[in-house]
């Protein structure tokens, strides 16, 4: 038992690196995803096409492949370090996922609320800042935490390019005395802890959205029956798999 605790302590720097990596990816990916989501709702056809191509590519490529493309491929033009490569690759990947979430959130503003704002003589800018953005910020939190989970777990792929994040440091600790299993198990437990914390936050955020909008969210499969009754639900995907 003591041995495992020692291992956990030894792995903390790796865990910290993983968390920093994930945060940096999200810091790149979320703003980019928001812009892409706006573009997907835009009237400009060419803009939508460009963004759809971006989204389809980065959602269609395996994350590992994107990471290799950046880490090995960009050396044609410039030298990028491991951490930077991870941030570029997974920042773009998370942006592609977030784009779809923001697009759906913007499209899910109930039409009636937009009409009410119009009937009260709001300007376009006022409608955006006072009705659309508050709505988006509300409904978007749970799926964004979902992206955070995927991104955090995705940082484990950085092991493949030799980064010393959580998985990488577990492996190298294991290699020093050729007992790989224990540090790997402890690393897995640490991943499990962080993922569980995030999942718990996701559930809380989801409840908050339901409380405010009075709608059953689509994210938890258990609410399928409620969904059947919720006829007024927006026309976004009902499957959580598609939202990811």
């Amino acid at each position, binding site marked *: 038992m003591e041995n495992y605790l020692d291992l956990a302590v030894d792995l903390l720097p790796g865990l910290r690196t993983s968390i920093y990596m994930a945060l940096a990816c999200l810091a790149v990916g979320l703003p980019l995803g928001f812009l892409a989501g706006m573009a997907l709702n835009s009237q400009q056809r060419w803009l939508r096409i460009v963004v759809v191509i971006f989204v*389809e*590519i980065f*959602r*269609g*490529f*395996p*994350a*590992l*492949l994107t990471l*290799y*493309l950046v880490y*090995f*491929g960009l*050396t*044609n033009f410039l030298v990028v370090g491991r951490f930077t490569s991870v941030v570029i690759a997974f920042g773009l990947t998370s942006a592609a996922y977030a784009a779809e979430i923001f697009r759906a959130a913007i499209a899910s503003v109930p039409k009636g609320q937009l009409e009410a704002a119009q009937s009260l003589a709001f300007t376009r800018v006022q409608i955006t800042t006072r009705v659309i953005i508050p709505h988006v910020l509300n409904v978007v939190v749970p799926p964004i935490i979902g992206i955070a989970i995927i991104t955090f*777990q*995705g940082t*484990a*792929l950085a*092991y*493949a390019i030799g980064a010393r994040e959580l*998985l990488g440091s577990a*492996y190298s600790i*294991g290699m020093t005395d050729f007992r*790989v*299993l224990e540090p*790997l*198990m402890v*690393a*897995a437990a640490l*991943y*499990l802890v962080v*993922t*569980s914390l995030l*999942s718990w936050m996701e559930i809380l955020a989801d409840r908050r959205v339901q409380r405010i909008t009075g709608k059953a969210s689509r994210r938890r*499969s*258990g609410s*399928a*029956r409620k*969904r*059947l*009754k919720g*006829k007024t*639900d927006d*026309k976004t*995907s*009902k*499957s*959580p*798999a*598609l939202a*990811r």
Partner: protein
Amino acid sequence: MLDSSYVIEGLMITLQIWVGAFLLSVILAVPVAILRRSDNLLLRFIGGIWAWIARGIPPVAWLIIIYFGLSLGIISEVPVYAAIVGLGVVNSAYIGDSIRAGLDAVPTGQWEGAASVGMNLRDTLFRVILPQALPVMLASTAAYSITLLKNTAIASIIGANEMVFYAYNASQVGVNPLVAFLTIGIVYLLFTIPVGLFARWLDARVMRSTTGVAS
């Protein structure tokens, strides 16, 4: 250039892992879904723990633990098998969710209606419930199988000679890495985009039909 025979050879392994892990995950997911829908608290707890652990650990960590760590004899010595087991375990949690969502989407009235005319469990399930639940299950299962396909790339890390593995090796022996990785990237898109379109089409159809029943 990346040799096309290598791409095809790699693709075959990729598909093997994809299909193998998918089948395994379905086999594992049925008991998981049954456990998680059980009335017994303990059984529900066990099903929940399975899904929690399967999902809470990154797929790449699963593969490495299974391949390097666990001495499971045959499984650990063949990277393709290790990948199938690891990805199958991870995916089982998601497929379990699909099955649960599909069953939940069928209104309780359907069970009660079947019971009221004296149908047995088997007929109720196969004649009444599953025909309605299946489209819902299929839509999310299709979406999850895209994630599964992309995750097969991880198998290259433990040495399975699938597409990424070949591209990686080619890039180490002089092929421009951009060319090598973009080539197989396009191959992935040839699968992920059609399956994604299919999933979205199915999802839209399910949405229409279920909302029609609702009122």
